[in-house]
């Protein structure tokens, strides 16, 4: 008999395709696992298996981050202000994937409105890391990452604004891909920062990521003005070497503030890449040091505006017994938003307010230009930029909640590609002990490519993945 939990999504799809496995059996298997979840990875799990459809994804069920709107199914973006909200429509990408044969299995926990790097900011309680339940899974797509790593879902989608797919993928020992901005429709994604948000796959391996991404990109969505016809195509990766591939290592993102264990794993993987035939050289991203600052102006500014619609008028929470309109607004938003969301709304409102716009928002947009230029210049000489995905391994629950900026530093390696709108993938890069010692935890390796280079990026990631041979079984027990 097949051990279903050990099948990758691609293997499961193939088994269904061959008739060795019924789609409904797989769905029920994962529904039961998800329902028995002890990690608080889910905010909703399907009651019934859907009618088996056929499609290239074979009927392999999908876990979807809470912030994707799903008709009639709670879509709360991890926030109490949207508790129990069931939208009347479904996000384009969820609809596309369902049509392609990946039916909705569950909605996954996340940091409230995707603001956070640990999933501790969820209005529905934190998600635990399956490798060590005293630690965070990363965030904001922590529920998706933990569910896939723990084998509670075959695969998942999440969203990445400044690292929210890549960083939890790294901390949970799975693959996470943030596509080129505009490659995947944002219609139906409850927005955090519109100019940065992008949906992508969180999967057990690179092949699964490619399989899912293939169905996420394609013809532009007429409902999302910022979406694009995807140029070229995404194929299943098969490459096993890196001959002729030039990897650039930016000193700015691979030294300061990074844990020794992470740096050790990073150095080992660079050596492995050389053995696979890649050239590895230092590259310069001179403005990368300012990326975090620019990001923490732009993202909160957009968020402050995106979250203005949560006003207690049309949906969601409303404070009771308001004395007047202003009272209704301010108390609804006081009661409904968590501490981090309030912090970012305040930061973003301040950055856009009269007299400060140019100093903050205007300057941050110019820094963004410089960062995009840095990457463009680098890609004239390199195929990909490689960095550690996160500066450390999974940290303990509560370790960084007291110091917002310490939490923001988690995004230091992921934010530059977000600002430039270019694709980046995180793959498991072995294990490393946390700074204080203790049992080893997953580490991530990030590859960043030029806009629309997903196919090549997946190929290179696949070659490295095969050579690295990461074993994630421990998390699925």
């Amino acid at each position, binding site marked *: 008999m097949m051990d279903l939990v050990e099948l990758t999504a691609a293997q499961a799809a193939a088994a269904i395709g061959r008739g060795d496995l019924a789609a409904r059996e797989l769905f029920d298997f994962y529904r039961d696992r998800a329902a028995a979840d002890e990690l608080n990875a889910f905010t909703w799990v399907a009651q019934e298996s859907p009618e088996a459809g056929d499609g290239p994804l074979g009927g392999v069920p999908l876990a979807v981050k809470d912030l994707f709107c799903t008709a009639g199914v709670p879509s709360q973006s991890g926030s109490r202000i949207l508790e129990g909200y069931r939208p009347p429509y479904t996000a384009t990408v969820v609809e596309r994937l369902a049509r392609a044969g990946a039916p909705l299995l569950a909605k996954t926990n996340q940091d409230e409105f995707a603001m956070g790097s640990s999933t501790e900011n969820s209005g529905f309680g934190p998600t635990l890391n399956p490798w060590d339940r005293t630690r965070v899974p990363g965030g904001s797509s922590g529920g998706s990452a933990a569910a896939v790593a723990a084998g509670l879902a075959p695969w998942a989608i999440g969203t990445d604004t400044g690292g929210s797919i890549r960083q939890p993928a790294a901390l949970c020992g799975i693959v996470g891909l943030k596509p080129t901005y505009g490659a995947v429709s944002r219609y139906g994604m409850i927005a955090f920062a519109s100019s940065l948000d992008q949906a992508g796959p969180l999967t057990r391996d690179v092949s699964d990521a490619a399989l899912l991404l293939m169905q996420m990109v394609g013809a532009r969505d007429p409902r999302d003005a910022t979406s694009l016809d995807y140029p070229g195509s995404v194929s299943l990766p098969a490459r096993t070497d890196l001959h002729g591939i030039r990897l650039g290592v930016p000193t700015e993102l691979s030294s300061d503030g990074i844990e020794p264990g992470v740096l050790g794993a990073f150095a080992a993987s660079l050596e492995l890449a050389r053995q696979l035939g890649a050239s590895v050289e230092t590259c310069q991203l001179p403005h990368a040091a300012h990326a975090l600052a620019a990001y923490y102006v732009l993202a909160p500014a957009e968020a402050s505006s995106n979250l203005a619609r949560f006003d207690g008028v049309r949906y969601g929470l409303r404070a009771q017994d308001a004395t007047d309109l202003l009272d209704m607004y301010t108390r609804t938003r*006081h009661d409904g938003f968590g501490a981090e969301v309030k912090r970012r709304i*305040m930061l973003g409102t301040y950055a856009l307010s009269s007299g400060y716009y140019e100093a903050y928002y205007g300057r941050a947009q110019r820094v963004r230009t410089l960062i995009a230029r840095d990457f463009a210049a680098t890609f004239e000489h390199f195929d990909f930029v490689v960095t550690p995905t996160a500066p450390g391994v999974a940290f303990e629950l509560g370790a960084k909640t007291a110091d917002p900026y310490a939490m923001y530093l988690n995004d230091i390696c992921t934010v530059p590609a977000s600002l430039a*709108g270019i694709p980046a993938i995180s793959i498991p890069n072995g294990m490393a002990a946390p700074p204080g010692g203790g049992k080893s935890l997953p580490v991530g390796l990030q590859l960043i490519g030029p806009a629309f280079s997903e196919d090549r990026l997946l190929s290179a990631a696949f070659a490295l993945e095969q050579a690295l041979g990461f074993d994630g079984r421990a998390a699925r027990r």
Partner: protein
Amino acid sequence: MIDRDTVLHVARLARLELSEEEVARLTIELGAVLEHIETISRLDLEGVPPTSHVIDVTGALRADEPEPCLPRERALESAPEVLDDGFAVPSPQA
């Protein structure tokens, strides 16, 4: 640096009620975060254009063709207070 009055002013713009404790904490936290963000004020950005759309797309417009609307029950189904087939709120004039 950000002071208590600024925090209160910004909170009012954002329609956020803050407890005394929140005001005190945010004054400190925002000040600390802004200190880190200030690093970009030292960069020379003369002549650098701002980027608001990172991938250059133009012309994604919609033809002026009707699409089905939501049935009213669906439009109103999540509303906290419904009155006369509409979304009821405390009167702004009150």
